[in-house]
């Protein structure tokens, strides 16, 4: 065990994100965004070398590429993964993506399209992108940099872009077996879908965060996992890898104010 207390919340979340890919085997690990990508990279460089990763463009690499300007680092490509190949991978189910949806509901349904009324929305975001296909075909996890009730909404998300465990949405004969939602990593906690009927549970709380605070900032009731404890702190070895993968400290800009990993009681 490390007793390292000098780490940021972003670094704690990177380590928590990396845990999402444990035990997946040879799948394409797609961490979309700085923290999920660093999480996937950390997983590959520690306990899961079998994971496949890309250069975030169209080539596969066995050595995760550091983020941002590369200096004299030269990527070593091991294969090809054009967007067209990514879709083949998605439909074949050999992928675990971690993405940051605009909204998530208690069923694990996600929204990346619009906030508010569909025809005349309060805010147009990106569009559904690949969420419908990803969510029904392969493993997904979610990343939320600012845990609040605007993200974790009461009721259903405004536009169901990614499928979830909502029985009302599934008609007889539709194949739900390939759907698999694993983890939600937020700035407050780590959650999973391992409660009764896939209810969302808090699996671990980040240092200094209470369950009540998480519940208060979530639009639907949460369960406590029986083994719920504190989110593991990064080890010195993990921090060294993270710093090497992110030499320009892009992670420092991901969470507002770049707070320390161990929260000082208010």
């Amino acid at each position, binding site marked *: 065990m490390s007793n390292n207390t000098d780490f940021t919340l972003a670094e704690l979340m990177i380590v928590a994100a990396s845990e999402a890919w444990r035990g997946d085997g040879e799948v394409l690990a797609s961490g979309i965004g700085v923290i999920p990508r660093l999480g996937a990279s950390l997983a590959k460089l520690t306990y899961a070398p079998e994971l496949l990763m890309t250069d975030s463009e169209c080539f596969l690499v066995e050595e995760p590429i550091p983020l941002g300007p590369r200096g004299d680092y030269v990527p070593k490509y091991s294969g090809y993964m054009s*967007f067209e190949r990514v879709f083949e991978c998605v439909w074949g189910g050999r992928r675990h993506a971690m993405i940051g949806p605009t909204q998530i509901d208690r069923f694990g349904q996600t929204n990346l399209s*619009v906030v508010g009324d569909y025809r005349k929305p309060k805010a*147009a975001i990106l569009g559904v992108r690949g969420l*419908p296909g990803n969510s029904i*075909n392969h493993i997904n996890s979610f990343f939320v940099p600012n845990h609040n009730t605007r993200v974790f909404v009461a009721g259903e998300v405004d536009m169901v872009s990614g499928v979830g465990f909502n029985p009302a949405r599934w*008609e*007889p004969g539709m194949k739900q077996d390939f759907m698999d939602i694993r983890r939600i990593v937020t700035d407050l906690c780590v959650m999973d879908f391992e409660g009764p009927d896939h209810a969302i549970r808090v699996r671990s709380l980040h240092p200094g965060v209470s369950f009540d605070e998480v519940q208060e900032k979530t639009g639907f009731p949460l369960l406590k996992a029986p083994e719920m404890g504190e989110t593991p702190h990064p080890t010195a070895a993990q921090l060294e890898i993270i710093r090497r993968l992110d030499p320009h400290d892009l992670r420092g800009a991901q969470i507002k104010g770049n707070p320390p990993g161990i929260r000082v009681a208010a």
Partner: protein
Amino acid sequence: MNKLMTAADVVAQLRDGMTIGFGGWGPRRKPMAIVREILRSDVKDLTVVSYGGPDVGMLCAAGKVKKLIFGFATLDAIPLEPWYRKVRESGALELMELDEGMWQWGLRAAGMRVPFLPTRCGLATDVTKLNPELKTIQSPYADGEVLLAMPALKLDVALVHVNVADQLGNTLIQGGDPYFDHLVARAADACYVSAERVEERLALTPDQARFNTFERYLVKGVVRAPCGAHPTTCAPEYGWDMGHFKRYVASAAEEGGWQAYMDEFVTPGEAAYQDKNGGIERMGTLPLPVF
């Protein structure tokens, strides 16, 4: 056989109400020189089919879009496409919002001349609920699975930007990722390509010829358009123009912003456009983004 024409010749083929597919992906290798020519024209009421970037945003800003068939619109490094967002939020667009996979499945079906292709993508989401014309179908085999029957997305016209073309309509896409331009080309009654360079007739090595992703019989016209993807990327030659994107994004927040953008960059023509953006020399050497 010589398919060489101008962007204005291409736009002269367009009619109000047509369904037009665009190659590229988000802010990458979009046929922007032809898009600008559409912006200069009277063509309207278009159904635009795109993995959207500034092609979608600018056509929306100019009021050319009646219906959008899309999975997203983004400038990537600037996640929210400003003019798509503004026009989308006004409620002015008809929409068929599709999963990215469904979108290309529809183009594939059109290219293969079948009425639909089955997929799981889109089931159990609002994509099917909001587009009641999307039907499900039950597998006729023992599994009996219910699948979405993604209808063919037939295009009147496809517009694609490539690195190299010849006058016969042979094309090369030399960037790392060819995206889905081949599907866009196959789904259309007529595909027009713009190209960084146009040769009389390509004479390639086997390694070079592998960058050809669709056949010339699909190509009806070839437009010489150096830096024709600007301000989007055209790998491996040039990256996106972040300064230009910022100017474009700012226009969406300004009173009369679109008219000012048109006056400054579009209306005076492509030569003036290049001058305004520092000339071909600068535009063609913008660094590729690093991720």
